[in-house]
C-alpha cells in the first residue's frame, strides 16, 4: 500500500524518513499543533510551495531544463481563480471555471513555449522563458481593470471555503495528492526517459526517444503543477497579485528551494520548501532573540539584527551549496544516514 502510494520510491535514509514524516504530520495537523493565524499561514504556504517546487524539479532536476517561467504559471493559476471569482461571484462554478481556464491557458502557453523553443539550446530556452515571464508580468500590471494592476485582486470564496480550516485542508489535500502524482510520474518509464535526457539527450534519441516531445510533455506537466499551486495559494490568501505569484523573487526562491533540498529528488522539494519557508518566516524572530541575547557584545547584535535576515539566509544557502552540492536529500542518501 505504502509502496504503491510512494510509487516504490522510498526515502532511502532514516533521517530523511524522519524529516519527511515530521513535515507530513506537521502539515496534516498544523491547525491543531500550531494554532494561530501566522503559523497556519506558514503551513499553507509550505504545502503550496512543496507542490510548486516539486513541479519545478520535474523540469530542472529530472529533465535538466532551466525555466524562468514557472512563476508565470503560478500567477496564471492565481489570476485565473481571482478574476473568475471577482467577475462571476463567489460560487463553486466560478472557482471551477477560473481553475479550468487557468489550466487551459497554462497548458497552451507551455505547449507553445515547448514546441517552439525546446529544440534550441538550453540557454536560449531559459532566455525565452524569461522573456515570456517578463511579458506576462507587465501584462498583469497593465491590464489593471482585469487584474487589479500592482494592487492585485481580493475576492470572496464559496461559503464552505470561508472557514480557514476547510480552506487549509483543501490546500493540503490537493498539494499532497499532486505531490504523490508527481512521484508516480518521475518513477514511471516516462520519468526514466526524462532522467536519460538530462544525462545525455543524444543517447536517448539513439534509443528511439523523441527528446523534444518528452521535454515538451515535462514542460506542460510542470506548468500544470505550478498552475494548481497558484490556484491553491489564491484560495488560501483570497487574494492574488504580482508580488505573491508573478514576482521574479519567487522564481529565485523556487530555485533556491530546489537546490537546497536536492535536485532530481522530489523529497528534496519537500525538504527545501519547508526549510526555506520556515526560515523566511521565523528567521527574523530567531535573530531578534539572538540579537537580544548578544546585547553588550561587540558587533554581534548588529550582525544578528532581524533586518539582516536576508544576509543569513544567503549564508545558509552558500553553506548548503558548499557542503551539500547534491542537496540535503542527496547528502543524506549518500551518507546512508
Amino acid at each position, binding site marked *: 500500500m505504502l509502496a504503491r502510494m510512494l510509487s516504490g520510491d522510498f526515502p532511502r535514509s532514516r533521517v530523511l524518513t524522519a524529516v519527511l514524516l515530521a513535515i507530513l504530520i506537521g502539515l496534516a495537523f498544523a491547525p491543531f499543533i500550531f494554532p494561530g493565524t501566522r503559523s497556519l499561514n506558514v503551513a499553507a504556504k509550505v504545502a503550496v510551495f512543496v507542490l510548486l517546487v516539486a513541479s519545478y524539479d520535474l523540469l530542472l532536476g529530472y529533465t535538466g531544463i532551466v525555466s524562468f517561467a514557472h512563476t508565470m504559471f503560478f500567477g496564471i493559476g492565481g489570476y485565473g481563480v481571482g478574476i473568475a471569482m471577482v467577475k462571476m461571484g463567489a460560487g463553486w462554478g466560478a472557482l471551477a471555471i477560473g481553475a479550468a481556464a487557468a489550466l487551459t491557458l497554462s497548458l497552451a502557453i507551455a505547449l507553445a513555449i515547448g514546441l517552439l523553443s525546446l529544440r534550441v539550446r538550453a540557454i536560449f530556452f531559459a532566455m525565452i522563458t524569461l522573456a515570456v515571464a517578463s511579458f506576462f508580468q507587465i501584462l498583469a500590471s497593465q491590464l489593471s481593470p482585469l487584474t487589479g494592476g500592482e494592487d492585485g485582486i481580493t475576492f470572496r470564496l464559496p461559503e464552505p471555503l470561508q472557514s480557514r480550516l476547510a480552506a487549509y485542508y483543501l490546500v493540503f489535500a490537493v498539494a499532497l495528492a499532486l505531490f504523490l502524482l508527481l512521484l508516480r510520474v518521475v518513477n514511471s*518509464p516516462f520519468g526514466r*526517459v526524462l*532522467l*536519460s535526457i538530462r*544525462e545525455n539527450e543524444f*543517447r536517448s534519441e*539513439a534509443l*528511439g526517444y523523441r527528446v523534444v516531445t518528452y521535454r515538451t510533455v515535462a514542460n506542460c506537466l510542470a506548468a500544470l503543477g505550478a498552475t494548481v499551486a497558484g490556484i491553491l495559494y489564491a484560495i488560501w490568501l483570497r487574494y492574488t497579485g504580482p508580488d505573491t505569484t508573478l514576482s521574479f523573487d519567487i522564481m529565485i526562491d523556487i530555485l533556491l528551494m530546489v537546490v537546497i533540498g536536492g535536485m532530481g529528488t522530489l523529497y528534496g522539494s519537500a525538504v527545501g520548501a519547508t526549510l526555506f519557508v520556515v526560515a523566511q518566516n521565523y528567521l527574523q524572530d530567531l535573530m531578534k532573540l539572538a540579537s537580544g541575547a548578544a546585547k553588550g557584545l561587540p558587533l554581534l547584535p548588529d550582525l544578528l539584527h532581524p533586518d539582516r535576515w536576508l544576509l543569513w539566509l544567503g549564508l545558509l544557502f552558500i553553506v548548503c551549496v558548499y557542503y551539500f552540492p547534491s542537496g540535503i536529500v542527496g547528502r543524506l542518501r549518500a551518507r546512508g544516514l
Partner: protein
Amino acid sequence: MPEPMLSLAGVNTHIAQYHILQGVDFEVPRGALTMLLGRNGAGKTTCLRTIMGLWRASAGSIRMDGREISRAATPDVAQLGVAYVPENMGIFAGLTVSENLRLAARSGEPDAGRLEWIFGLFPAMKTFWNALAGNLSGGQKQMLAIARAIVEPRRLLLVDEPTKGLAPSIIANMVEAFRELKRTDTTVLVVEQNFNFAKALGDTVAVMDSGRIVHTGRMDALAADSALQTKLLGLSLEAHQ
C-alpha cells in the same frame, strides 16, 4: 543474392567546415557481422553516427532493409530496429543497471527470457542489477552498453569500438558474447581497431581511409593476407600479435 540489411552509396558528411565522409559505399549483409576497420581519423565513427542520423549526410543514400534513412531523424532510425552502442561506453551513469536496460526496452520491462540470456552473456549485469551504472568498472560499463543494445531483438546493431580500453580477459569475454550474438543471426556492424578481435568475429569487412571505403571483402581473406593488411591498415597480423 539477398538484399543487404544496410547499404551506403556515395555518402558524404560534413561536420562544420570539415568534409569527413567523402563518398562512402559499402554493404552490410543480412545476418552477418561486418567489421569496419581503418586508422584513427578515417571516419569510422562518423560513418556510424551518420547511419544513426546523429550527423546528417550531406549527400548520398543510406538504405536500411531497402528503406531510405539518410534523412530520417535518430529516433526514427532507432525505431526501425537499429541499436547503437557509441564508443566510450555510452551508458547513463546516473541510472542503475536495471534502469539502463529498462530504458532500452520499448515496453518498459525487458522480456524475462531475454534478460536471462543477457545474464548468461554478462553475469555482472545480474550481480550489479541495482547498482549505479557510473560505479561499474570499464569492462562492466561496456557490457552494459552492449546488453542495453540487445535487450530486445534488433534488426541491426551498430557497435563502436567495443574493446577500446578493455583488459585482454574482458576482451575474451566480449568475443564470446559476440559469438553468442552471431548465433541469433543478428546483423551487426562493428567499428574496431583491434585486428585480432575483428579477425575472431568478422564475417565481412570494410576498410576506411580518409573518409572513403578502400576495401571490402571477406574478413578471413583479409586476415590471411598480411601484405593487404599492411597496405590497408599499416600493420600485419603477425606484427600485431
